[in-house]
């Protein structure tokens, strides 16, 4: 025996896209049609899934160009910074095997960082407004091998401050942790954003700080926990903004 045909307006009924009289007709039809009653549940599942759908809005047209412009700038910047004879990585970050916890720094490494920061600033054709050498906090710099960082701060037309971080041997955080960059002054801090690291090798991060961070004199990189109730925030790197 052939199954009865499904009512052609059943989908529109579930969507609420029928006129009142058509809706009423479906309501009268359903009690006598097992096929439609059976179909109805499946259609309602799709309709419920649509509740999670994002609004049908296209991103602004200029976004693609901005992404390509930033990508181009970062590629050029990388080429500029690459040591002679040293190949660049395939993506934006150097890949490395996953390392353990944060490694500590020797005093010699800190000196290299400072020197690197100065040379770095001098070599750039378009000099950054501020270059900050980031070194481990004293209590952690217990003479083990090194991680360090350099931050370049560039004011933006919007008055925000764009910060480019380059971190060396900065370990990938544990799954429940992440890093955060702060502008600090006395007892006040402003977050410039959170990030993770690739571990051994170089990690590059681009972050933005609000205009009020201009007057702050210290940069801090802290290791944070996803569970904000947990204590134990550590300052991993610190630098003085000249």
């Amino acid at each position, binding site marked *: 025996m052939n199954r009865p045909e499904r009512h052609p307006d059943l989908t*529109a009924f579930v969507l609420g*896209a029928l006129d009142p009289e058509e809706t009423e007709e479906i309501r009268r039809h359903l009690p006598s049609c097992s096929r439609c009653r059976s179909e109805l549940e499946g259609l309602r*599942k799709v309709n419920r899934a649509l509740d*999670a759908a994002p*609004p049908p*809005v296209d991103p602004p047209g200029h976004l693609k160009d901005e992404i390509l412009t930033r990508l181009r700038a970062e590629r050029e910047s990388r080429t500029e910074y690459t040591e002679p004879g040293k190949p660049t990585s*395939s*993506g934006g970050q150097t890949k490395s095997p996953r390392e353990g916890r944060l490694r500590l720094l020797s005093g010699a490494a800190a000196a290299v960082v400072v020197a690197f920061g100065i040379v770095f600033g001098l070599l750039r054709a378009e000099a950054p407004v501020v270059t900050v050498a980031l070194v481990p906090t004293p209590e952690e710099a217990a003479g083990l091998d090194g991680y360090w960082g350099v931050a370049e701060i560039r004011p933006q037309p919007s008055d925000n401050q764009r910060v480019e971080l380059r971190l060396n041997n900065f370990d990938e955080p544990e799954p429940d942790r992440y890093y955060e960059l702060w502008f600090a002054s006395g007892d006040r801090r402003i977050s410039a954003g959170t990030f993770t690291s690739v571990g051994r090798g170089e990690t590059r991060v681009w972050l933005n700080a609000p205009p009020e961070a201009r007057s702050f004199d210290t940069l801090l990189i802290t290791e944070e926990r996803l569970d904000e109730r947990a204590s134990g925030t550590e*300052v991993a790197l610190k630098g003085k903004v000249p």
Partner: protein
Amino acid sequence: MSVTAGDVLEGERRPGGPRPVTSGQMDALSDEQLVARLGGPEVEAAIARLYDRYCRTVFGVGLKMLGDRSLAEELTQEVFLKVWRSSGTFDSARGGFSTWLFRVTRSAALDLHRKRARRVHPVPEGDSQILAARDDSAGPQEIVDESWLTWRVSRALDALDAPYREVIELAYFGGLSQREISRRTGVPLGTVKTRTARAFKSLREELVLADAWRVATR
């Protein structure tokens, strides 16, 4: 001589990286093949193709997760730049590009959420604890819980041909009746009904393949 899809695939295994292709051939490449080109000279063309395929989903999911258009724009920029910077970590053996891109998007959205939640906070002298400002928006866990379903539904909608997606968007998001959709689009009422029914069937098939279905209907 024309270059076949087989040639393109073979090119992915060349020691010097993927074989360069023309713009038309770039369109025919899979997501994974485009990712393989992000480390080479065709990076801009490859990221542009990936953007065209996924920008609507990334932006839409960002808008849904963060509830703010400018943050969703910032998110979209960060996500596609992260795709380029982290392309070396993508391993197709561990899952498709869409799933990987979802993880990148979710991670970037959480970063933006945290950034929005923490601004200027006084810290007591000598206290290493960082005080977090609270707001009334959804917390990170809520954002994560909903985001995979949002992603899947968005991809399922994107997989529909434009005329089919249009009737769903006008009915579901626009609140229009079938008759109003017919009047607005100039498409006969019977065609609107057929497209709506077929669009729902396609959505159901797409979602049934994903765990989104289980999450949506539990």
